[in-house]
């Protein structure tokens, strides 16, 4: 069996490794348009955080490691067209037109930061850093800049604002919604972080959309908002990512948002063609609702699922809860599942509860603010958000598993946990605590 995988980022690599795991005799070819593979998309943040000395260390896998697994890696191979009837992939390699046939094709082309609405956003003065070389250019530009404007207050934008602020840059952050990180957090939960951003001197411009970015004569950048302009030395594009799928043929059906339509086995509408990672919509939780959630966790898991279903549909994708965790401006924040604001898109009646819990049994214990979102009737947990000064990030995975396995609040009260006064409070923070005296905040509704 000849398996061709387009794209060698997390989704493509995970798929390749799992195909190898499942099919020892399969011929596996990875086509990657860049000259290297395995770069971690937010390597730049690791560098700015001084977690790594240079971008060379920001790789999760190398070509050699893959080739040791007998996975062929064709780098600098940019796919131009696929023919799902003849089962061919046409690509350019060093400006040479090449054609490769396949038995199974996995599309894992990922996504990039693009904006078709902001004129000038594809210019050189606009920094993007999903790729290694873009990141290197960004390092250089930012070092020589005093002021930086970030467009988009999502995870990338907020992290970048914090890291650039620590480098004494004057940071302006522009967000179209009325608060930052709105996809993952409800407004009430993110307020402490947003206040800290303002206190740290971030020029936060909410409910603003950018219409254009222009370079001025004195090497500055002028960013046009609705009624005003912002000038800075550099601009970082932190808007939503989008896939580029120009090479598909008409047999591969797309969703309204131009992502590839796949079933729960990652099969597209074309026979023997699968799609994974950032170019598809995923089930949000167990529901039949399809949402675009471009996260590495989904890329890896969908890659593995596609590999498991190459010959027969065996393993359905369990869905994504859009679990994230990060730290910025002195806070650790994490979220999984549905937010209260987002529940307005469903028919489900939800209830929420907010609690401030101690993290240990010691007198100087740090606290975590938790928000629980659950079904009003069944009490099944649907979403959770956390914010703390201490690193509580790993706890979100427990709650993600609780949602995935449909635990109720009552089930969570019974969840087994270890007790040690130095490391835990009387009741584990992820065991829902109904007692008034154990928490600062009462039920919201």
């Amino acid at each position: 069996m000849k398996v061709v995988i387009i794209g060698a980022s997390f989704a493509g690599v995970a798929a390749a490794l799992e195909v190898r795991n499942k099919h020892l005799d399969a011929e596996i070819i990875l086509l990657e348009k860049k000259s290297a593979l395995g770069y971690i998309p937010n390597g730049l943040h690791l560098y700015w955080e001084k977690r790594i000395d240079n971008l060379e260390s920001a790789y999760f896998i190398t070509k050699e490691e893959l080739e040791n697994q007998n996975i062929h890696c064709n780098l600098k191979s940019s796919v131009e067209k696929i023919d799902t009837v003849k089962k061919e992939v046409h690509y350019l390699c060093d400006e040479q037109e090449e054609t490769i046939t396949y038995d199974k094709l996995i599309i894992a082309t990922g996504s990039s930061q693009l904006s078709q609405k902001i004129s000038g956003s594809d210019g050189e003065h606009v920094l993007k850093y999903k790729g290694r070389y873009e990141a290197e250019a960004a390092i250089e530009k930012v070092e020589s800049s005093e002021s930086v404007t970030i467009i988009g207050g999502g995870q990338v934008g907020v992290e970048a604002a914090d890291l650039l602020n620590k480098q004494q840059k004057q940071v302006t952050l522009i967000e179209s919604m009325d608060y930052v990180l709105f996809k993952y957090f409800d407004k009430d939960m993110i307020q402490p972080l947003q206040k800290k951003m303002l206190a740290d001197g971030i020029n936060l411009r909410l409910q603003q959309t950018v219409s254009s970015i222009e370079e001025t004569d004195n090497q500055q950048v002028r960013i046009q908002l609705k009624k005003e302009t912002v000038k800075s030395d550099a601009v970082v594009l932190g808007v939503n990512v989008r896939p580029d799928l120009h090479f598909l043929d008409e047999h591969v059906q797309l969703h309204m948002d131009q992502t590839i339509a796949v079933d729960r086995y990652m099969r597209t509408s074309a026979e023997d063609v699968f799609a994974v990672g950032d170019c598809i919509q995923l089930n949000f939780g167990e529901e039949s609702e399809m949402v675009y959630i471009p996260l590495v966790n989904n890329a890896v898991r969908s890659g593995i699922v596609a590999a498991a279903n190459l010959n027969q549909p065996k393993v359905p994708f369990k869905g994504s809860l859009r679990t994230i965790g990060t730290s910025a401006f002195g806070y650790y924040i994490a979220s999984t599942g549905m937010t209260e604001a987002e529940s307005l898109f469903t028919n489900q009646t939800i209830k929420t509860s907010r609690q401030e819990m101690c993290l240990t049994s010691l007198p100087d214990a740090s606290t975590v603010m938790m928000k629980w979102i659950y079904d009003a009737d069944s009490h099944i947990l649907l979403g959770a958000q956390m914010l703390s000064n201490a690193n509580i990030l790993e706890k979100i995975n427990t709650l993600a598993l609780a949602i995935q396995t449909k635990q109720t609040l009552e089930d969570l009260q019974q969840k087994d946990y270890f007790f040690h006064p130095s490391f835990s409070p009387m009741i584990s923070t992820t065991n829902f605590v109904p007692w008034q005296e154990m928490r600062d905040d009462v039920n919201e509704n």
Partner: protein
Amino acid sequence: MKIEHFLEKNEIREVTIFKQLILNGGRLSYMDMLDYLKVAKASLDNDLDSISARIGSLSEQVNIYYDGQTISLKMDDDYSLQQIYHLYLSQSVKVKLINFLFKYQEFSIMQLTEELAISDSSLFRKIKELNSYLKEFGIKIRNGQLHGEELQIRYFYFQFYNYIENKEVFTDLHSDKQITQAVQAVENFLKVTIEPENRQRLAIWMIISKNRVNCKDKKYQHLHKQMQTYLEDPLYQKIRIMVLRYFSRYSIEVDEEEAMLHFAFLLAFSILTEHEFHEYTLMRDRRAPIASLDTYIVETIIIHYKFRRLPYMLERDMFYHLSHIHTKLYFFKGDIEVYEYEEMLAKEKQFTGRNLVSFAHTLLTTTTDKFMIIEDKENSLLKMELLKYISLLAIVTFKMTTIVQIGIDLKMETIYTETLNQMLMLNMRHINGIKVETYQPDKEYDLILTNERPSQKVQYGDAKVYVLSEILSSFDLKNIQSIIQELNS
């Protein structure tokens, strides 16, 4: 634009035959039909043949018979003229063309001639004809695409799928989870309840919006200009948040203007109930163009009719309806004439009187002046909105008419009084704004009809007294009518 514009000449004639039969109690002589249509015999014969062929499969529900002299129509109780229209429209090439355009958004001449099985030249002719009607919407078909302001394109499709196409089939075909969710989201985000009929209209709008959202190079110039005073509007702000959040869940970079399109639609097409609209009026900026015109027109009506005080709910109702008229005129251009303008106008004139129609014209001119709209007689939107002004004025005058209480007090033998009382009441039934009954001494009346001059006038209190000369004479009835009119004003 009229519904007929989607049909060919002979098809219009065929539909007219149905219409004439309906207007004439289902039967019309062949000669009268010829006269009405002003066509040659051969052509009417052709039309009748063509009708038979077209409704062949429906012979159980609808049929036209011609016995050599009379043409007659038989139609099932649950079948109506509207379905006949839909039958013709569903086979119309122009309707198919618009459907194709909606589905694919772009076409090549070859694609379309193949799909519609017509020649290049007739395709060009159809496009040319359609463009002449689309002109009032400010849109046109060019290079296989619909060009124009995005709001106008969506509005045209909305009218098209509401009135030209079968909306049930359209919604069934396109409604999916995303659409139901979008409609639900409007209710949840705006904290409103949408009535079932409005829910369907909103669903049609959402289907169109979903279809259009990915189109490239959308134009918003007029919308932008009109929205300048509404950017801080509380309803717009809520819609904006809803739209941004909705699209953040997809790989779509949505235009800021997407929210503006929904704002204009929700306010112009009475999606909100009166109660919810009222809540909005309490928060909206009263100096913004639509709100200030609403107030101005309400005041103009009050002054015109010299109303001292309007009932609170009637005033709210006026604001509700006026705001829809004004929002539509403020944001939109063109319309499909769903109601026959001339016929409706004639009916309304009959019912409401000439004065009301001319006052409605004055109101429309005020609006077009304030909004700087060119008053073009062919503009269907202006015609349709004029009908709405007339209806609103009719509602207001109807509700504000004081009921004149009339007591009949005939001094005769009982056997005659009862019969004559009844006959008098029957004769006066067509007069608006009166309540007639046999005189009861303990009640108060505005007018007393009697046949003998009262000996003591005080007997009837403040009521005006009319002494009938000859009961049921036209002379008396005419006098009574003018007294009622006087009492009413």
